[in-house]
C-alpha cells in the first residue's frame, strides 16, 4: 500500500514552477521534487498546506495505491 499524489499534475495544470511553489509554501524545491516523484510522503501539516495551496479536497491530491 503506497500513498501517491497528483501534485505534479496540479502544479503543471496551473503553470507553476517548482521554485515558485517552493517559495510560496516555504519549503525547498528538492522536497517538492521528492513529493512529486513519490520518494517522500509529506507531513500532515505540509499535506494540509498543499491542499490549501491548490484549493482541492484531500482525495483529489492524495490517493492510496494497493499493491
Amino acid at each position, binding site marked *: 500500500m503506497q500513498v501517491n499524489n497528483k501534485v505534479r499534475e496540479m502544479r503543471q495544470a496551473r503553470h507553476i514552477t517548482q*521554485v515558485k511553489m*517552493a*517559495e510560496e509554501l*516555504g*519549503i*525547498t524545491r528538492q*522536497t517538492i521534487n*521528492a513529493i512529486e516523484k513519490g520518494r517522500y510522503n*509529506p507531513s500532515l501539516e505540509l499535506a494540509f498546506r498543499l491542499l490549501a495551496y491548490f484549493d482541492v479536497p484531500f482525495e483529489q491530491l492524495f490517493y492510496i495505491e494497493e499493491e
Partner: protein
Amino acid sequence: MRKMKKRYELLIYVFITFCCFVGIWLGTKLIGEQLPSGNYLLLFILVGALCGVGLPMLISWSNRRSRQPDMDERTVRMLKNYLLSAFFLVSFLSGVLLLVLVGIGHETIELGWIAVYGGAIFILMTAGLFVVKRF
C-alpha cells in the same frame, strides 16, 4: 522576528568562536611547547575561526537572497536519519577496529592517534551532513 533570529545566530557563532579560542588555549596549556605559540598561534586561530565560522556564515547569508528556505521538514528528517546511521556505523567500526588492534597485539593506543581518528571522523561526518542537506 527574523532580526531576532539573526541576532541569535550571530550569538551562536560568537560562542563557537569563543569555544575555539578556549579549546586552543587549553590545548597549548596541556601540551606545552609542542604547538606553535605567539603570533603564529594567533594566526592559526584567526585562520581557523575565519574558515570554520566565517565561511559557513557567509554562505548562509548569500543563500538568504533566495526566498526558498535553507531547510525544511524533509531536510531535518534526512539529517536525523543520517546522524543516526553515522553514529551506529562509527560505533560499530570503532569497536571492530579496537578488536582488530587488540587481536594483533596492541595493548595501548597513543593519544595522538585517537585525536587523528576523531578529527577524521568529524570531518567526514560534517562533509556528509552538507551532502545530505543538499540532497
